[in-house]
């Protein structure tokens, strides 16, 4: 109960900033040239002034900015994200449809980056300044420095077109009608390349942090004490060093949830994934204010939730910290 109350409190503490953020974005977007009707006419290939006026009335764009902002905030207070101009659906529905691929992509990329970063970081720290360290660190830097869209496109060319090992894009085999495990495997199959692409830069970061944290912890007294106990190197590493070195890694997850969502814009567009990132990009281009703000809202909630989970995880890993304290 205490836990739930804590969760609620955390959320409540973030709400005011969230509202200000949304209002700020709303106002900012008013300065954008053109509105959703212009975007719609561009898409439809033409239209006249009567039609435009009709559409503006339909989407409520004929009201003044303060009126619309007030209406928007009032809706938000009632947890109504509004109606999407592009999709002709409530924003909540649109976002829900797009949430799963992005969540899957982010979760798998994060897991990959975390796991691989951890393993490589440990290997590098074990042989610090030796050749495995040099190779791993250099590789990390190269991963870090590679533009993700470039890696993604090259991945498609090599693995989908030349080798035909993986699908070139999409979120599942269209119309295959798979269900259950088969469906999951199919989606996983399609997500391999995007996951690797998105994970790369984060992998590099995790690797770097893990290496540094390992070096830091390896130097601490209790590691010396553990060795003085006559523990084998593996046990020292696994039981004493690793768990402590993981703490900064865990913190990093929380910090990067937002960045990762930003990175998925490009990756989703390269791999034709129907996710939130691409939706955000499209709604900027289409001036679909409600959808964009809805995404910001959801991503903020997402980041808050991730940070919340990270806190819990942290408390689990580090008994000195209590999640409720």
């Amino acid at each position, binding site marked *: 109960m205490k836990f739930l109350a804590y969760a609620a409190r955390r959320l409540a503490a973030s709400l005011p900033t969230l509202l200000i953020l949304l209002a700020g974005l709303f106002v900012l977007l008013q300065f*954008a*040239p*053109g*509105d*959703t009707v*212009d*975007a*719609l*006419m*561009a*898409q*439809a*290939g*033409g*239209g*006249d*002034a*009567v*039609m*435009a006026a*009709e*559409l503006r009335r*339909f989407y409520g764009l004929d009201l003044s900015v303060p009126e619309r902002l007030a209406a928007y905030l009032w809706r938000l207070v009632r947890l109504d994200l509004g109606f999407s*101009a*592009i*999709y*002709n659906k409530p924003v909540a529905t*649109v976002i829900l*449809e*797009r949430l799963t691929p992005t969540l899957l992509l982010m979760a798998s990329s994060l897991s990959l980056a975390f796991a691989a970063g951890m393993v490589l970081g440990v290997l590098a720290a074990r042989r610090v300044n030796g050749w495995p360290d040099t190779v791993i660190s250099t590789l990390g830097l190269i991963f870090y420095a590679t533009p993700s869209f470039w890696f993604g*496109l090259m991945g*498609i*060319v090599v693995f*989908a*077109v030349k080798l*035909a090992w993986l*699908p*070139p*894009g*999409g*979120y*599942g085999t*269209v*119309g295959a009608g798979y269900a259950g495990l088969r469906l999951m495997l199919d989606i996983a199959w399609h997500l391999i390349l995007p996951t690797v692409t998105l994970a790369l830069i984060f992998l590099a970061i995790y690797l770097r942090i893990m290496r540094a944290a390992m070096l830091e912890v390896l130097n601490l007294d209790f590691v010396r004490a553990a060795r003085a106990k006559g523990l084998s190197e593996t046990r020292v590493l696994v039981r004493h060093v690793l768990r402590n070195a993981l703490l900064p890694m865990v913190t990093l997850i929380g910090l990067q949830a937002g960045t990762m969502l930003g990175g998925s814009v490009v990756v989703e*567009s*390269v*791999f*034709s*994934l*129907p*996710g939130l990132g*691409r*939706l955000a990009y*499209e709604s*900027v*281009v*289409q*001036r679909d204010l409600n959808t964009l703000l809805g995404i910001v809202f959801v991503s903020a909630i997402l980041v808050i939730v991730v940070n919340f989970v990270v806190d819990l995880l942290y408390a689990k890993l580090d008994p000195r910290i209590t999640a409720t304290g």
Partner: protein
Amino acid sequence: MQIGRRDLLAGAAVAAALPGALRAQEQPRRGGTVTVHMGSEQRILNGSLRASTGVYVVAAKMQEPLVELDGEGRPVPMLAVAWQSAPDGLTHTFRLRQGVRWHDGKPFTSADVQYTAMEMWKKHLNYGTALQLYLQAVDTPDPHTAVFRYSRPMPQDLLLRAMVDLGYISPKHVFEGTNVLENPANTAPVGTGPFRFVQYERGQFIIADRNPDYWNAGYPYLDRIVWRFITDKAAATAAMEAGQVQLSPYSSLPLADMDRLRKDPRFIVSTRGNEGNAVTNTVEFNCRRDFFKDVRVRRAICHALDVDFFCENFLYGFGKRGTGPIPSSSPDFYTPGMPQYEFDRRKAERLLDEAGFRRGAGGVRFRVRLLPAPWGEDIALWATFIQQSLQPIGIPVEIVRRDAAGFLTAVYRDHDFDLATGWHQYRNDPAVSTTVWYRSGSPPGSPWTNQFGWQSDEVDRLIDDAASELDPARRKAKYAEFTRKVLEEVPVWMAIERQFISVTSARLRNHHNTPRWPSSHWSDLWIAS
């Protein structure tokens, strides 16, 4: 007549024609799925509400217009079986096909035509609202007759040609009494066509299955059509090469890839079947600017652009020098021998000097801001080419990149541009979408209308007269006159004439056999084994 001449790509045409001859003996095969590449997604998939190739390429398989074009580019029956016009051009009577049922089983009647025309075409359909401005009423003397009554003469050929695009019928019983724009059927079409809507996953795909009760018995051949949304062009090419997509219409792949794929025997890369959708790359002048007020400056700009070089080197030959607002692929209205602006840099400089814009400090005459429309790779290339071509004659160009909404607002509402470039899409008849680029009086904010600060009473009159001229020959003559006039004045220069390019799997049969094939019904399309 149209099919004969149009392939700019002689090689590809021959490659396509030869198997075609052999194909004549092939027996159409039933079944199979064709997957189509879609570069972007539409908000509304209803041809009665949105006139756009992006809509037709999906919706036209489920929804049908009253008339369609045949292989020769002539209007042929679809939902209408016959038509007849009063000599004064004020009433047009359509006999409707009998025994046609909507996908939900309800019969198709003249009430549907009446509802669609009055509530959708006239009120919401882009270009339709202008076309049907003088439509008074649609009478329904019986369930299979619809009589269109106009308050001003409507040329029959204009109506029929326009209706190929602007004549899609929606079911009255689905839309009546609802908010038309919000109706769920707009993204899950209910029509009379050969395929039935199955599923639409936003951002991913649309599926339509064979309609077993299609009025044209025996058709369609395919079991299923899948449209996949792949926004990244390079990724789309990869999907085609990986065999996941069989058809990419409307120039949706990178030019370089289309050029590469045309040497690949697995694909047919051609503009065939897109003759009805000619596109021109424009150079749009803001004639409010001091320098563009002077027609000599506008002409100088045209002379400074080496269109042939551009087409050959940048467009891989997928395009040719434009000759005027009416493309050469529209023989009913096209008149050759109009004044042209050949590439002549010295002449351009001379014109500029004459107009008083001599080179100043640093050899600069004046600076301009160029807004390229954000659609199409060729526009970006063309904008860069304009920049590169005007610099040497003393006009430095700053390219201002805007997204779609930003571009339309800046150019067509705020007139915040010196030069703009985009596409003009010709829609079978100059009155539908072409003359609005020249006719004055469009309110600010209407895209693809005359927002160039240029006005000519003579041209306005010619446009209005031609639109209600009933005699085809005289109409053509009026358009010739119009063409000559706007070519002399060049408020907008239709610099390059192009047709959309389709990339098709070589296994498909009966494709691209009408002038607007990607937008047509595909009921005879089949897959060879």
